[in-house]
């Protein structure tokens, strides 16, 4: 009788511990329930009032997702980022099936960048990225005090464009917040794991 009791207590302890370990070892990345279809070109235009250096910073970010070879082919590219080399003059989110990166004053104390994604039939069909010009942005190799590195935050926004949500991993580019002067122009393993886990 005593042995039986001990047996069930053991089963209970193992169940709870396994549940916790299973949950904790899951991962830090998070995914959206929707994303672009695989083999899509994410063709985008950049605001005509964004400087050439700013466009270069944006391209540095998109190259991280375009060139899996840089990460020893740890992921297979599913969406190709393509700068159309055409400029846009929009100043507000517009659902027009064109992907637009634009800058506008969004206020201090608000977000650094804001991505808006539209979805249809469970797939993302458009994504626009707003860069908040209330903050100072840097395109330099060393980010000056009080500035935010454009490539770093754009790399994060492109992760949202693809279907990556915020990660609990503080080293991941998909972490939710960024300090001024902080620079990270490459993906973390957690970001790559998230990319690979998207149900393309």
């Amino acid at each position, binding site marked *: 009788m005593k042995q039986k009791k001990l047996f069930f207590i053991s089963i209970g302890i193992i169940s709870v511990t*396994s549940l916790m370990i299973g949950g904790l070892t899951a991962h830090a990345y998070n995914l959206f329930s929707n994303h672009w279809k695989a083999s899509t070109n994410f063709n985008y235009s950049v605001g005509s009032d964004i400087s050439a250096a700013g466009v270069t910073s944006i391209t540095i970010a998109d190259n991280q997702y375009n060139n899996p070879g840089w990460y020893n082919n740890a992921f297979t590219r599913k969406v190709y980022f393509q700068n159309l080399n055409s400029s846009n003059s929009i100043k507000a989110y517009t659902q027009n099936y064109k992907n637009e990166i634009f800058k506008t004053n*969004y206020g*201090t104390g608000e977000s650094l960048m804001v991505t808006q994604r539209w979805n249809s039939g469970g797939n993302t069909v458009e994504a626009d990225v707003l860069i908040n010009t209330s903050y100072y942005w840097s395109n330099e190799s060393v980010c000056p005090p009080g500035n935010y590195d454009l490539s770093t935050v754009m790399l994060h926004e492109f992760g949202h464009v693809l279907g990556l949500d915020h990660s609990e991993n503080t080293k991941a580019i998909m972490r939710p917040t960024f300090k001024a002067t902080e620079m990270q122009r490459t993906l973390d393993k957690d970001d790559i794991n998230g990319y690979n886990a998207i149900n393309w």
Partner: protein
Amino acid sequence: MRNKKTSFLFLSTAIIMGTIGFLGYNALGTSPKDAIFIHQSLPKLDTSILSSDSDLIVRGQVKEIMDAEWNTIDKKAPIEPSGFDVVYTDVKVGVKEVIKGSSDNEIVVRVYAGKASEGVEVINDGESSFENGEEIILFLIPDRTPFNKENEHGHYRVMGGYQGKYLIEGQTGLSKQVTNQFENKNLNYLLQEIENSKYKPKQIIENIEGKL
């Protein structure tokens, strides 16, 4: 033989429950597929910056969460949203104590997210979430976002997204704790941190020229 059977049972239980834990965790956060998603990358704001750069800091209680509405002129869902069309939800907060600035007894805090009576849901991952009755400390700024199309002044925004809202928990004054998305600390400690920084000059330098 019996030992083998028991070991097998233990192992199976561990594997099954571990898998359930893994899948259960991963299934969290699923959301409506055709909603409009707004994703914010927030500047990391500590209590010092929140205190110095917010216009109003209050301790209060959520009184009412209003119905979500579109910010269009007729409040109707647009066929194809443009020009910062979005859904907003206003939250009425009863003010118990003004820690910085001046305030009415009741204020309105606006969140750009929600599901209006028509149109798709707007899900915004950087916004604070509110529940009726909760006791909170809020770091507030005027709404300078372009979503505030008419430049209305009758409401506030939480500074730094969900970083500017602390939930007060616990029974007595001394043991009360405050939590936000990133941290948990003693209420009195937070109030002292605010006191130390609220009159400092603003720490975020505004890019007036908007150069990029």
